[in-house]
């Protein structure tokens, strides 16, 4: 009985969902200021690239945990008979 029903990572999901929500809120609350800096070109190019990484980390974890909470997970590998 090594494999009991796994506990769903609801708490962790809520934390990442909260972070993602704050990131999106900030992006749209300050959209004109952000777009002003982000489209200045040259070394400001690091800003959109860095933002994309931060968003993908937070939101990537959110979506990963979301499907786990919903109960959609990858097929377990087992020996082919």
């Amino acid at each position, binding site marked *: *009985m090594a494999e009991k029903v796994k506990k769903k990572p609801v708490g962790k999901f809520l934390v990442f969902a909260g972070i993602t929500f704050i990131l*999106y809120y900030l*992006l*749209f609350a300050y*959209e*004109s200021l*952000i*777009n*002003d800096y*982000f*489209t*200045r*070109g*040259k070394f*400001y*190019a*690091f*800003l*959109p*690239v860095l*933002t*994309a*990484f931060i*968003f*993908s980390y937070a*939101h*990537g974890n*959110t*979506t*990963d945990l*979301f*499907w786990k909470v919903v109960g*959609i*997970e*990858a*097929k*377990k590998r087992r020996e*082919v008979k």
Partner: protein
Amino acid sequence: MQETIQHAVQMIDLQFWHIMYLIFVGFVGGLVSGFIGSGGAFVLTPSMMSMGVPGIVAVASNMCHKFPKALVGAIKRAKFGHVDVKLGIIMGLSAEAGVLYGAHIQEHIKRTLGDAGSNLYVSIAFVIVLGTVGLYVLRDAFKAMALEKEGKGTLSEEEKPTKIAELLYKIHIPGTMIHFKSINKKVSFLFTIPLGFATGFLAATIAVGGFIGVPSMIYILGVPSLIASGTELVIAFIMGAVGTFKYAWSGFVDIRLAMLILLGSLFGVQLGAIGTTYVKGYMIKLVMGVIMVIILVSRGLMVPVYLSQLGWISPLNPTYVSLLKNTSFAVNALALFVAAFIIFKNLIKGIYEEKRYRVLETAHSTLKTTK
């Protein structure tokens, strides 16, 4: 010029339906991307342009959502053992050279023949690549499906390396041999470089490099389909990150648009990646082949429009032109939705079977313990 674009970026007023639309198409594109390694760009770029986003900003913002999506997808697929990182990095770096050369050709055509000329070039590239590679991939998928139905299709038989791959394995060029774990063989990087280059060239031309990248890994290098589509995400990540930086250097990225597409697409890419664990390799080929052939029709419809704009054929009636344009876009969207439908169908079927299997397994073990 740059000031005008910057102004245009700020001018776009995002309406509620724009936001919902970007999230939704992002989700479907992400789903396909997580499954076959690329997808969505051919619907997203024209849709953004129809919202009033300048073409170059649409391309740049699309690319800015693509690389984090590819990264998240690649990490997920790597957990399932579907990624050959070394192959992805080598192909990705050579793809970068292909992107630069492809963009150079595009600029040259635009300078000499104008917008209609470059549109025609892109459409013809679509028709040639999708017509040859797409039909081949689709034929191969149907062959594997038929074998499966007859009960002859075992995994090893289905994913047997092609004759070209077998030949490549035999060629030994000292000092250039690299071991790839996905095929467990040494192949000279002199063979992988042109494949990466072609992938990048196509990405710069039609925005979907995976249409060359994935089939070339499968048929030329002999990489199993599931690993080829997972590795494509590494290539897409490298191409996307460098491409985004290049566009952002000139100030063309609208981060709001990119992050809105990302919002939906990360849900999709995770689900698409999960979907690959429930299917056999030929399903990747089937979805990819179906998309390629439907998009072939979509681009083919536009060829007469561009020919008439160039004055190479007699001018077309404006109502006829708008009809062709709308039909072409609808067919594009159809490709994405047909692919999403196939993925969903397999995912639901797979999860259902898995659950039934688990119930049976539990019942079996309870029976054993009570005995």
